[in-house]
Each structure stands twice: as structure tokens, then as C-alpha cells.
């Protein structure tokens, strides 16, 4: 837990720092390329300490005359019930709000596990003149940093990440991050209080990125909510191994867990186990209740619509990048459903 506590300390410091320079960080202040990495408007809300300032979302654009064109490249599929689906559905929601396909065009490429293929797709969308090109995977960042300067008219976005590459002089990249540990913390708290056995099982995919944030937050939440709660953590080493994820859930139940959670598109296998074995499930990234209404207590849902709208508004106001967004409970980006 050492890394997590250092992380909290760091984040708290960042929050103080941001509070100090809050007046300067007005919405859509044009980013100035500097040698120092400059992060604008980052909201570092730490689990359990919600007194941190929030992104001020730019008001939605007033009926743009031209069709706004968005392209997204994602590693998994639009129906993965997890990370990729959350962003795709977010785009569809914004499209509906803006007035359908006439107002906003969405092009997508899914199943881009291969980074080289994704890089080619990003490049192609940019050269086709899309206004906003979203690289929906942390692993695409390196390709994006190479690509973005070649298309200064295009806005790019990537996540989950915080780096907008301003240190490298790039000004047309947005970054977005979900504070997955927040929901993890909240859900972990609920789980600990609900648990009768006092044992909680978490199964993650690979011990990195968004999944690690969520798992650590959940563990931390559960352990701080109720002393003596035992939290068992396992990883399957894969984002798509449904069978192993199911076996991991079985193992947690056999180890006495009555509350289960996990991250990645492979958790659908574990939800079935929770249902069959009479355990409760907590979801993340996307609404997972309907798979097993009797077993799923709650899901932390990533609602990207606010961020998407702000990126569109910023682009139309001439600010093509440089902002770093975070989904939090306070700004409505994280929703418990």
C-alpha cells in the first residue's frame, strides 16, 4: 500500500497547489507552450477528501452551423461493457443532445489492440479533416505525441492520461483521466459495510493504469470503512480472459468473499459467478447491473459527456488542446448507478 499512500500525499499537494492558482485557471485560458510541463485545471480529488476545486465546463455550443466531426479509435469494442463502450456511448449521447448526425458526425475504429494499427487510424482520421480525434487508450499516447504537431488544425484527445505533451510544445492535445480510485473508494466502503463475512475479493486484469487505480481505491475504501476487513486481490494478466476472470471470482468466493469487484471487459465472466454463488458484485467503467440485477449492487459509470462537450466547445472557441480533464464525482463525470 506504500505506493498508494505516496500517491495520496502527492495528490493532496497538487490540490493545494491548484487551489492557490485557481483564479488563473479560468475556463479555456489559451495554453502557452512552455518548457515546463503545465497542467491546466487538473482536479486531483483524492478519495475521501472531496474539498477540491472542479473543472468549470464551458457552456455547450449554440447550434453550430457546420457538422462537427469526431473520430474515435479504441482498443476494445463499442459493446465491451467497459472502458470503450463508456466513451462510445458518451459520444452518442452528446450527438443526440447536439441534434443528431447533422450536427455531429461520429466515426469509430474498434478492436485496435494493435498500437501500430491504431496509430495509422489516428493519422488517417486527422488527414481526413476530423475536428476532434480521440485516441481512447493510454497506449496510444506515444503515437499521438508524434502525430499531433503534423495536424495543427485538428484537436486530439487521449486517455486515460494527464499529459497533454505541452512540455514538448504540443498545443492541440487534450488529456482525460478517470479518478477511478474515487468510485473504487466509495464502492469499497459500501462493500465493507455490507459484507457479512468481512472478506472482499477484487480481480483485476493487469496491475497498471486505470485498473490499478480502481483496485487500490476499492481496497483502501474497504479497509478504512471497517477495521478488520480482509481484501484479497488477484490479477488475470489479461483484459479479455473471461474464463480466468470467472475462475478468479470462484476463488475469491471459496476464500470466503461475499463482495466481489473487478475491472476490464472480462469481468462479465465474474458477474455470472457472483450471481450463481450468491455473492454481490460492484462494477466499474460501465453500468453492469442488467447482467445480473440481483447480484450487482452498484457500478461506477464513466460519464464522459461533460468532457466531450467541453472539448467541442473549446475547439470551436479556438482552443485546440492543452487541457487535462478528470472525471470525478464532484463534476458529475463519475456516477454511481
Amino acid at each position, binding site marked *: 500500500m506504500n505506493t498508494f499512500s505516496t500517491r495520496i500525499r502527492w495528490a493532496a499537494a497538487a490540490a493545494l497547489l491548484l487551489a492557490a492558482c485557481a483564479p488563473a485557471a479560468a475556463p479555456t485560458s489559451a495554453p502557452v507552450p512552455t518548457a515546463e510541463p503545465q497542467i491546466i485545471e487538473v482536479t486531483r480529488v483524492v478519495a475521501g477528501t472531496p474539498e477540491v476545486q472542479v473543472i468549470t465546463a464551458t457552456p455547450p455550443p449554440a447550434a453550430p452551423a457546420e457538422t462537427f466531426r469526431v473520430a474515435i479509435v479504441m482498443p476494445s*469494442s463499442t*459493446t*465491451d*461493457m467497459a472502458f470503450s463502450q463508456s466513451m462510445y456511448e458518451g459520444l452518442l449521447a452528446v450527438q443526440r443532445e447536439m441534434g443528431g448526425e447533422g450536427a455531429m458526425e461520429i466515426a469509430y475504429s474498434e*478492436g485496435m489492440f494493435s498500437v501500430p494499427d491504431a496509430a495509422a487510424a489516428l493519422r488517417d482520421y486527422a488527414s481526413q479533416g476530423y475536428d476532434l480525434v480521440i485516441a481512447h487508450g493510454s497506449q496510444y499516447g506515444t503515437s499521438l505525441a508524434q502525430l499531433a504537431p503534423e495536424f495543427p488544425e485538428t484537436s486530439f484527445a487521449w486517455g486515460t492520461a494527464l499529459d497533454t505533451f505541452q512540455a514538448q510544445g504540443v498545443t492541440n492535445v487534450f488529456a482525460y483521466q478517470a479518478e477511478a480510485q474515487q468510485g473504487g473508494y466509495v464502492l469499497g466502503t459500501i462493500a465493507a459495510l455490507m459484507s457479512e463475512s468481512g472478506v472482499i*475479493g477484487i480481480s483485476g486484469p*493487469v*496491475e497498471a493504469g486505470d485498473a490499478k487505480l480502481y483496485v487500490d481505491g476499492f481496497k483502501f475504501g474497504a479497509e478504512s470503512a471497517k477495521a478488520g476487513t480482509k481484501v*484479497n*486481490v*488477484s*490479477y*488475470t*494478466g*489479461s483484459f*479479455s*480472459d*473471461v*474464463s*480466468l476472470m*470467472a*475462475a*478468479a471470482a*470462484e*476463488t*475469491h468466493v*471459496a*476464500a470466503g468473499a461475499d463482495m466481489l469487484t473487478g475491472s476490464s*471487459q*472480462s469481468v*462479465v*465472466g465474474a*458477474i*455470472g459467478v457472483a*450471481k450463481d454463488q450468491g455473492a454481490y458484485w460492484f462494477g466499474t467503467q460501465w453500468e453492469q447491473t*442488467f*447482467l*445480473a440485477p440481483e447480484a450487482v449492487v452498484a457500478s461506477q459509470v464513466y460519464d464522459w459527456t461533460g468532457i466531450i462537450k467541453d472539448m467541442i466547445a473549446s475547439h470551436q472557441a479556438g482552443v485546440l488542446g492543452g487541457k487535462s480533464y478528470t472525471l470525478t464525482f464532484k463534476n458529475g463525470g463519475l456516477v454511481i448507478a
Partner: protein
Amino acid sequence: MSELFTLPVLLGILYSGIRLATPYLYAAIGETFAQRSGVYNLGVEGIMLMGAYTAFYVASISGDLWLGLGAAAGVGAMLGLLMAFVSVTLRAEQGISGIGLHLFGLGLSTLLFKTTLGGVTSISGFQPVRIPFLADIPLLGDALFNHNLLVYVAFLLVPVANWVINDTTLGLKIRAVGQNPAAADSLGVSVGKIRYLTVTVGGVFAGIAGASLSIALINLFQENMTNGQGFIAVALVYFGGWRPWGVLGGAMLFSLVNALQLWIQVAGIELESDIAVMLPYLLTIVALAVAVRRAQQPAALSKPFERGEA
């Protein structure tokens, strides 16, 4: 380490291991038939995916699990026939046609999933059947005899396959065709027919392997849900030395170690998660390396047969 070797944990490992081994058994036993006759089908993974999708789709619209299972077997047979046509009649390089079949099954099952189902939903699959008396055996009973039907059938398949291969005329023909097709041919055995039969049977079992995931063990369909299990199944045939009992040994070793590594993580033993995940792959290699008995592969494996060739 001591927390790992308590009785409940060992029984838990046994229970999970048996469940994990089920799809491997179907797929690998089917592949054993094909390889014994000299055809090596690397496309098992694609057939499994099509089987998983078909079983789930048919079962969820008809409400009949058996119909779903039958449909998966049917689709498996069709893809097996396709593989047989390409590798037996057209005498294609088997490794590459298998990769083609894998891509085809992966793409088609995902496309059908997206167009007909649109998203992940779940189904109530085959329920556990407690076997009277046996399930009441203290301790072991629940781990061994409280599974769904497809799990039992997978394990029963092993002695049956062993009997067919070793003790029947058909088995003799299969082995002859895989060992020395020219001699078999001269004795009046139709090499093509036997190979068509075994590859199709292999396809049926691969289809059922997929169905065992989507309507018996996991009870849902998600794109690429087999996640490489078909390739592991092919590897297990080599592990088993082309013998059904050996395949069973390999499938159980791999699955039990997989269940064990999850327990290692859950029990909080100091081992990096990625290293734990490596264990089944690592130990499968090691086990084969130190195994004493080593089988000779069917001499004509992966060699297309052409009458009149040496």
C-alpha cells in the same frame, strides 16, 4: 505458504481446475482425432468461438439449451468440413489454413454477435447436477460430483476416445492413415474419408468446447471470449502425446496450476501477479521436459496425402 495447503483450498483448486479444464478437454480430444489421422488443425480457436456464439444465440432465442448445444455441434461440423476440404481435398498447408480458419471464426462470431445480439447479455445455462451418493462423499464429493452435465461429459469423453482410437476398427484405420497413409491406402482404407471424418469430429468437439463456455460455464457470449484457449488445446495434444489420457493429464495439469496461481494471489502470498499468471504455461513446458515417456508423433502429421507419392 501454509495457508495454501488447507483442505478447503485444495478442494477449491480441484473444483476450479475441473471447470477450467472442460473446454480444453473437448477441443483437445477432438484435435487428437484429427492429428492421429495426420491432419493438424490450428483453427480450433475459430471453431470454438463460432460454437460459443451459436450455442448462446440459439439457446437464448429458443430457450432450449439442448438446441443450442446441437447447433454449436452442427456449426462445428460445418467448419470442420471446411477445414477438411481445404487440408485434405485441396491439400493446403495445414498451419496456415488453420490460422485462416481462426481469423474467419473470430471475425464472423464477432460480427454476428454485434448484429444479432448487440451487446453482452447472460443466460441461465446448464445447471449443476449433483450425482446421487457420489456427491455425498465427504470432502471430495462436492468438488468432483457437483458440476453441470457438460463437465461430466468432457471427462467421460476421455475413456471413450481412448477406446475408439485403440480398440476399434475405426481407430485402427485412423492410426494407420496417420502413420502410413500409402500403406493404408493400398489396404483399401480411404485416406480421404477417414481424414474428413476425424477433422469433422474434431470440429464438432471444438464447437461443443465453445458451447461449454457460453451456455454451461460462463453463460454469456462476448467477442473473442475463448481468448486463445483453442491454441492451448492444440498444445495440449502434443503434451498428451496424441493419447486421450495424456491429453487429460495435460489439461488437468494446466488447469489446476491456473487455479493454484489464482489461490496464490488471493492468499496474498508474495509473488508478482504476472509471474503467478505465467505459472501454468511454465509448468506445462517443464512437466513435458521432465516426463519420462515420450510419444512419437503420427508419422504423416501435417503431410497431405497424394496417391502415387512416396
